[in-house]
């Protein structure tokens, strides 16, 4: 490989004469007469701390999770070295008493809840993005700030707010009781409705911001052209707008779906004890059964990667114009 290939976007000051020479050959980098070897030594000193940190506390722990998923538990978080498929089997439902459907049900529920959250978020975020983008410039900054503030407020506090609003003594629950939607003594939480409400409000800003970024740069002349050619509202949306906002939709979808898959706080506080997601399973095993915990993490990572792959693949299905 030639040295020129190794240059990043930062090394623009490189003269053409540097191509195809060894690391010891003299070169000019941003006005400095030096060698590749010296530049790389300097670079190694600069990135050393950060790269080592990320290796030690991120790459190695993730590798350990992968390895521990195939080990045996020694109780209270400890691990005994071995090679076994038992932990992954337990994730799929095999236990001491034979196979049970509980875990598969939880896995399915996790994917369904995350998917539903994503769809609801996108459905609400899209009109919001168009609304913000069509405001006057000064107003837009204010609205984006209004979105950022709850986004930056700790999730625990926002969930505490929902428990107040949805508890059986609140006026909202009172209204639902009057309408007969829930029993006379019941609250609106814990329950599936509360979980979905909590999930959608948690991730709504994640969906609005990337959508706003594409809607703001939307080329409206294409829409005009479609109208001039007698295209109806549906065909205009499908062929003049959708291809333009697709990157934003995919980004918003990934930003909502991925963290939604790993959510445990919302279901833990707003769902009944039986409404568990993979995140809740993981939380229960922290400090207890480390190999099982690791196997659950592997499953979640696999689900995340599959989800991202599907969203990206769907994005390619929509042709431009």
């Amino acid at each position: 490989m030639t040295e020129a290939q190794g240059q990043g976007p930062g090394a623009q000051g490189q003269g053409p004469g540097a191509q195809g020479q060894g690391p010891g050959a003299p070169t000019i980098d941003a006005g400095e007469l030096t060698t590749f070897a010296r530049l790389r030594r300097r670079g190694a000193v600069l990135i050393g701390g950060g790269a080592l940190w990320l290796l030690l506390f991120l790459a190695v722990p993730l590798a350990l999770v992968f390895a521990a998923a195939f080990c045996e538990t020694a109780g209270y978080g400890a691990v005994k070295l071995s090679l076994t498929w038992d932990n992954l089997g337990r994730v799929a439902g095999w236990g001491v008493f034979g196979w049970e459907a509980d875990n598969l049900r939880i896995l399915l529920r996790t994917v369904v809840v995350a998917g539903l959250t994503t769809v609801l978020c996108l459905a609400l975020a899209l009109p919001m993005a168009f609304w913000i983008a069509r405001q006057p410039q000064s107003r837009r900054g204010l609205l984006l700030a209004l979105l950022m503030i709850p986004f930056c407020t700790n999730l625990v506090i926002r969930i505490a707010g929902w428990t107040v609003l949805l508890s059986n003594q609140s006026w909202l629950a009172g209204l639902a009781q009057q309408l007969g939607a829930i029993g006379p003594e019941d609250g609106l939480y814990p329950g599936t409705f509360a979980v979905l409400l909590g999930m959608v409000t948690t991730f709504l800003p994640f969906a609005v911001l990337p959508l706003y970024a594409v809607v703001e740069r939307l080329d409206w002349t294409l829409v005009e052209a479609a109208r001039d050619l007698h295209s109806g509202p549906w065909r205009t949306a499908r062929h003049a707008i959708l291809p333009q906002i697709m990157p934003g939709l995919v980004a918003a979808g990934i930003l909502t779906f991925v963290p939604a898959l790993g959510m445990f706080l919302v279901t833990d506080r707003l769902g009944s004890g039986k409404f568990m997601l993979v995140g809740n399973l993981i939380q229960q095993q922290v400090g207890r059964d480390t190999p099982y915990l690791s196997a659950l993490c592997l499953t979640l990572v696999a689900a995340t990667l599959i989800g991202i792959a599907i969203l990206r693949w769907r994005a390619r299905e929509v042709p431009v114009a």
Partner: protein
Amino acid sequence: MKTLSVLGWSGIGLLYVPLLAVAVASFNAGRHGVAWKGFTVDWYVKLLGNQVVAEATVNTLLVAGISTIVATVLGTLLALGLARTPWPRPVRGGLDVLIHLPVVTPDIILAAALVVAFAVLRLLGPLAEVWFAPGLLQIIIGHITFEIPFVALIVMARLTMIGRSQEEAARDLYASTWRLYTRVLLPQLAPAIAAGALLAFSLSLDDFIIAFFTCGPGTETLPVLIYGQMARGVSPELHALSTLIFVATVLLVVGAARLQGSRAAAS
């Protein structure tokens, strides 16, 4: 346009009603439940004398402060080394993966991975068992880990933007590497470094799950404390605390926006 406005405002409303509910509940005189029993500021007064809350506040600020400083230094150096070094392609690719890993990893996985790693580290011996016991050190290490890439990515974007002509000029004028970095690059990078530090600080304040998984007795941060108390039933004192944190968040966001606004006006 009318429908859009209604949808837009209701979307924003959905984000604010729970926060408003907490604020209203914090002024409610009733100790139990959410039924309105009159206005009071007693819960705020009681909060001031609460030892556990004071401890958690100190923990939170300590974790956010230390992790921000370390992550800002390491992240900035990482950005400089990545953007200004002609790395061979495989090295650059590896570094790129490493730096994006914390951004794409769901935080529950990152937290669980740290738990597993520290469990393994504790096996090393009795001394390691003390050092790597659940506590503040673990939370700080966890926070630094997910803050580094955000700082590095922001600084790197700025490095690409400012280009290399000023560096060339400095070299032509016989600037040493040290002078180049401290007198030419650092002043130009300062806004990006400040923005990265601010983001790191707010990410640390926003974290619940890493602190929850890795904290020990007496080392809870504020979100973990509120979560723990929530399990024992809602208390008005808790709502007072949450309201204060919300107000602090608003001030932080508005302050950051002002900072950015004045910088944009100056340049």
